[in-house]
């Protein structure tokens, strides 16, 4: 067993039934995180070539949060996220090629080219939406949780959002409603220290955002968001609580956005050395270290996974680029059912 693996400062509990299961799980998480990292690198390249319209908000550095959290969900559970949502939607299992095609505005995109980078949605895998108005998806998440509770499906609704979201009204209304109705929801705050260009301390009077759960008598926990196994453990407990009918939770995952807010943002507001310190705790490097130090995977094996993942992302991008643009007439479709 990989019991007691030490990643950064957090002690990890046993994660599987046997060594081989642990190894398999860790490799799965690693592969998924890598996939998201390489996908985002590819999106950035395409953006620089002006093949991506509007804006795009990259996820490099935060992969452990969505991959760790979504790894504890089961079929039927649902997830909502923000305009920085490529990672979360892929973590739910959305196909790489159709996700990339949506970002490129292609006819075969997840949303047939109607949503784009900020609105990736794949209902078939439970990724119910990337919402581009801060906090707007939190009442929605209470609604999917209400439906699950009402219909008795046992499904859990999980929402990702940023630190800045905890200052907008919809956050308060949604968490309050979820708490009074004891809804099966898990609210995962990805605290990446900046709301767009503004450091958290300039916009937010509390340092520990998990403390905001106290206003709703809601369970809460803070977790190292760069440690995929820690995220898995903490969110796993919250999902189990929700599924058991014990109500919603607020989880604060501490992480870091390695790129700027959006394309036009070079991140000049960062104090000197901050990025470098976080790069040392890069979530993917941390998993690699665990895998190798514990003998769960050889350097060669990791190299093979990296090569396979790079090839998968490359091939998916090529497919997406080769797909047709939507017919202009399609703009009239999907307004009404």
């Amino acid at each position: 067993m990989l019991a007691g693996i030490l990643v950064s400062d957090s002690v990890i509990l046993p994660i599987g039934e046997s060594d081989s299961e642990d190894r398999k799980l860790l490799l799965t998480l690693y592969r998924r995180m890598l996939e998201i990292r390489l996908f985002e690198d590819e999106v950035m390249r395409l953006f620089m070539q002006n093949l991506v319209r509007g804006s795009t908000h990259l996820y490099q550095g935060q992969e452990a949060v969505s991959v760790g959290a979504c790894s504890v969900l089961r079929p039927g559970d649902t997830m909502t996220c923000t305009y920085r949502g490529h990672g979360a939607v892929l973590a739910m299992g959305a196909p790489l090629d159709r996700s990339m095609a949506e970002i490129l505005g292609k006819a075969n995109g997840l949303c047939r080219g109607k949503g784009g980078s900020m609105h990736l949605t794949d209902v078939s895998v439970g990724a119910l939406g990337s919402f581009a108005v801060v906090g707007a998806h939190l009442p929605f998440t209470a609604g999917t949780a209400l439906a699950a509770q009402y219909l008795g499906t046992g499904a859990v609704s999980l929402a990702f959002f940023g630190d800045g979201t905890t200052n907008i009204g919809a956050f308060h209304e949604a968490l309050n409603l979820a708490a009074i109705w004891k809804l099966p929801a898990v609210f995962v705050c990805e605290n990446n220290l900046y709301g767009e260009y503004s450091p958290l301390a300039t916009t937010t009077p509390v340092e520990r955002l998990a403390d905001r759960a106290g206003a709703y008598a809601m369970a809460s926990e803070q977790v190292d968001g760069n440690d995929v196994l820690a995220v898995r453990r903490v969110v796993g407990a919250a999902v189990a609580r929700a599924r058991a009918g014990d109500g919603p939770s607020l989880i604060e995952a501490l992480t870091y956005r390695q790129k700027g807010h959006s394309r036009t943002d070079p991140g000049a507001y960062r104090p000197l050395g901050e990025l470098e310190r976080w790069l040392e705790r890069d979530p993917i490097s941390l998993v690699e270290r665990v895998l190798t130090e514990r003998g769960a995977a050889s350097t060669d094996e990791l190299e093979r996974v990296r090569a396979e993942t790079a090839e998968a992302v490359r091939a998916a991008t090529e497919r997406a680029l080769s797909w047709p643009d939507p017919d202009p007439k399609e703009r009239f479709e999907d307004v009404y059912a």
Partner: protein
Amino acid sequence: MSELTYREAVTRALADELEGDERVILFGEDVAAAGGVFQATAGLYERFGPRRVRDTPIAEQAIVGCALGAAVAGLRPVAEIMFADFAGVCYDQLANQLAKYRYMTGGQVAVPVTVRMSNGGGAGFAAQHSQSVENWFLNIPGLKICVPGTPADVYGLLRTAVRDDNPVLVFEHKLLYPQRGEVPDGDGLVELGRAEVVRSGSDVTVVATQLMRHRSLEAAEVLAGEGVEVELIDPRTLVPLDLATIVASVEKTGRLACVQECPPAGSWGATIVAQVVGQAWESFDAAPILVSGDETPIPYSGPLENAWIPSAERIVHDLRRLAEK
């Protein structure tokens, strides 16, 4: 046929839909135990229980967003916004989330949400509780808009709205709640997008909804005594709009007036005038007119508000001038 008040028609429509489909749930501020501030949901909590009829906090963003999420996850929620003016508190949820969810996801799911709101003025509620809020949504494709003016229409449109697979905003005029009228037996469904010709006439086409429909009918009776025959059309829904019925009437009368309880700028009446002129400008014998509220907020005091909202007398005056042109 049974005679019901507009309020009773709302309650009966909701009860019938709750009865007929387990996926229908109802929530909003004080809609359950208290029966709604206008008593339009009285008795539903007692009959259907706290699981299906729910009081929410005073939190309109949560109400509308929760309805959207619940619909995507398989329910058919009916949400109430107590005063339509509070749509301003949750405008993002209505205009950006509810209206666009289906479109932005490329039609992956249907969004069967009904949002009921009490609309309109005349009751002395002042500027923040009296507006004709349907006008705020004319520029937002993705929402259907019902503006029932009679017990039969509110019953039938509300039932149809709940069964519709799209977001439907149903505006209930607060001054009409006590008004009585016949409601047909049977399901009483009223199709969205079908206007009612309330009164036939050959001289002037008048389009009016809700309270203005009733005042326009009064005005039409007065004008009939002067030999001016008004054709009164109540579109009943603004989205979809039965433009064909209005155009056919203007082709007959050559004159068009839209009578509305809101300022003229950006109003449904202005939109209808533009559309009818675009389709049938050669039919006009006189320039079309709007009979509207003023370009000010709605005032509180009785004499001020009464002067603001078009009265039957003012409608008679404006239509008489139009008929003389």
